[in-house]
């Protein structure tokens, strides 16, 4: 199981700051999240795997932690 931690509007859409899913890689993860929460298709966010932001698809191992980070602009 992959632990998914959400922030900002992403957490609002998903309905929780922490959920668990099975996923083989980050593409698979995005796909599954969008299937469950189609509103995510409209939103911009980056992924951090085990606290490292990724710029490309990454394979996932059991117990990996993926954070979904949207941009904030308020001030």
């Amino acid at each position, binding site marked *: 199981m992959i632990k998914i931690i959400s922030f900002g509007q992403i957490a609002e859409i998903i309905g929780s700051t922490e959920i668990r899913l099975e996923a083989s890689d980050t593409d698979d993860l995005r796909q599954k999240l969008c299937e469950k929460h189609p509103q995510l298709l409209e939103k911009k966010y980056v992924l951090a795997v085990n606290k490292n932001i990724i710029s490309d698809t990454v394979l996932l191992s059991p117990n990996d932690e993926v954070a979904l980070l949207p*941009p904030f*602009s308020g001030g």
Partner: protein
Amino acid sequence: MNYSERYSRHILLKDFGEEGQLKLSKAKVLVIGAGGLGCPILQYLVASGIGNIGIADHDVASLSNLQRQILFSVSDIGKSKAIQAKEKLLAMNPDIKIEIFNKKITNLNSLKIIENYDIIVDATDNFKARYTINDACVLLEKPLVFGAIFQYEGQVAVFNVEDEKGKKTNYRHLFPNPPTNSDAPNCNEIGVLGVLPGIIGILQATEVIKLISGIGKPLCNQLLIYNLLSSESYKVTIPSHDLPKNLIPENIFDFEQRDYGQMVGEFPEMININVDRFKQLLLDEEAIFIDVREFGELPEADFEHLKIPLPTLSNHFLEMTKPKIILFCQSGIRSKKAYEIVKNHFSDTKELYNLEGGILNLKNIL
């Protein structure tokens, strides 16, 4: 006024001392925005003895500001934030030199203002300003202390400063392109707990002090996210990969030509192509075709193409190597969404096309 008495608690502090205080007194810091983030930042930087402060804000104070913009009083309502902030700050510490810029920072005025400071602090509240300031700081090689908030959470980072390995990043390593304004509303629209910008602002002021004095480890190539509901912070590293050419303007002329307003708000102008144009592009060596349908959808595309389902598009930008990209799906609806996503990433660095009517429109030529 008595310098060593005023700053005695800094001077007594192990690893800070007189040397640290002297560094603060010689520093020049520009704070862009005198609102929720800017107020606590300014108060603490001035209290700490930063010798030269710049305050940029075009706005006037209003009643609803007072819930979190703690530099201001009831008597400041309707008055210029920059002017009133300067007055309050000088009353606290008259030895600080304060210069104010009672205007919006844009790509037409920012370079001249920013170049006179050592460190820039982004305390603004919108993406247009944030991307403008980021690009200006990259161009002028200025350290940028970033902070931003949303409801109960905040982000802090230090950009354009090398870490111990010599790597540095800027805001575009994190979010290469701005979302449209609907993606991230500001406090006027969704509300904010008054203490939040206080916390995040002080974290920003702390990073400024760390950078100047050399104590501790600044948030270089890192993003800190703080959640006040759980009292938890989450820190991630930002990769320092090469950015696409021209993502950030490479010179002053280019910077001043960019339309940062369009970048954030205007719906990207979509270029739809018909079957004839599509046929032409099939022969173009510089063109790459991307099928954004789910795997297994029929009819199969009978020409060279990449299969990247729409939900995963953002992870595959590195594969989009050619200058011309043609997106298609079954009937031309999903590819419009894909167009927006790809356009937001590459901006004007690539030619993007959407196949009108999708692959169903093409069945004649397959």
